[in-house]
């Protein structure tokens, strides 16, 4: 996009000799200097080319809980996609152990062990569930994107009996990780929205969760299920 297409460089003297006679003609000095300044200004604008650069992908968020979709690893040029799979974390409690207060390890049907960032085997399946994502945005550092879990009040079996969701907890780690996890361990609430963690702008964040069932009540027999929805929200 040209800024001033009508001006022409003919106004400019590439030889630069126009100023030689000015000293002998003091009376006309000011108008001529002003004129020269004006011409120089016009020709400078006419001889600069201007493009407009527009951020076309200003904001992207990606959240993966369990399996996810990348065309290939990010560091090999991979692009994230949608994956509608709902992974299950489960455990079976032996009749003799029901309600004895011994936490029961849970496993997942997720096969996501490697990080889509670089293919590094970050989690150990089936004992751990991968949770990770990124928040891409232009401009200076902004507030972090937040991850919220929407948790039902209870897990329910076919006959309507319930187990409180607060009976499920998790620890957080990752192969090669040290220090505080970005998505730390916790216990589900009994219904409602629960903050899980956050992702700073232009950061990739990931953890591996190891779930367990606290097993401190004696519910009715059956298979109890419940679904937790994870949401990533950018500011």
């Amino acid at each position, binding site marked *: *996009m*040209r*800024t001033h*297409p009508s*001006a*022409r*460089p003919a106004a*400019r003297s*590439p*030889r*630069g000799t126009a100023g030689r006679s000015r000293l002998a003609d003091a009376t006309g000095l000011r108008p001529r200097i002003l004129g020269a300044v004006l011409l120089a200004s016009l*020709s*400078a604008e*006419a*001889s*600069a*080319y*201007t*493009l*407009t*650069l*527009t*951020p*076309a*992908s*200003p904001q*992207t968020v*990606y959240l993966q809980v369990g399996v996810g979709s990348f065309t290939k690893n*990010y*560091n090999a*040029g*991979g*692009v*994230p996609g949608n994956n509608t799979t709902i992974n299950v974390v489960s455990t079976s409690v032996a009749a003799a152990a029901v309600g004895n207060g011994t936490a029961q390890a849970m496993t997942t049907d997720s096969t996501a062990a490697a990080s889509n*960032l670089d293919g590094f085997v970050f989690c150990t399946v089936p004992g751990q569930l991968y949770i990770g994502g*990124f*928040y*891409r*945005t*232009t*401009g*200076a*550092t902004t507030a972090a994107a937040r991850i919220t879990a929407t948790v039902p009040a209870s897990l329910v079996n076919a006959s309507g009996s319930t187990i409180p969701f607060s009976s499920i907890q998790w620890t957080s780690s990752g192969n090669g990780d040290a220090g505080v996890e970005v998505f730390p361990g916790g216990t589900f609430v009994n219904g409602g929205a629960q903050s899980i963690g956050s992702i*700073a*702008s*232009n*950061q*990739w*964040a990931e953890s591996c969760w190891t779930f367990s069932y606290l097993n401190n009540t004696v519910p009715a027999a059956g298979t109890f299920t419940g679904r937790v929805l994870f949401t990533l929200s950018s500011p």
Partner: protein
Amino acid sequence: MNHSPLPTLRSIAFFFALGLSIIWAPASHARTSIIDDAGTTTLEPTVRLRFESAAPPRGGANNRMVGQTTVRVHLNLAPWLKHSGRIYLALPAQPPGPLTAIWTAEGRLASGQAHSGNRTLIYAGPITTPFLEDVLRFQFMVDGALVRRPFPVTFRFEFDED
């Protein structure tokens, strides 16, 4: 043996003056003129910037955004016809901050790159035609942290006559 101090003083004065003349000898800089590029056009006047990587790395080290466009350059060199000199592509320092332009040319001009506040030689030699044309395929790179909204980028062509 006695010596008159006068010749010595004269010698000192001579060498001192010589030294001054060397120090103050004006450097022979080529004069820079801005080339009329009024015939220059682009196929895509708006350059769409995208993150170089769709996802950020751990720690967020790569926020670079890139965008490409093609510019058909038309330079009016008539004022320097039958003279020799050098043509530069100058990328002035400008908002929103440091910017890099990389381009490939089709042969009349040289491919290269320039950073904000610098210029790069793209031609050297005699000016044998009043106009010089080439097609430059640009890639612009800028830190995404500096970019929030569309912004103009200006560059120009400069001529240093030999």
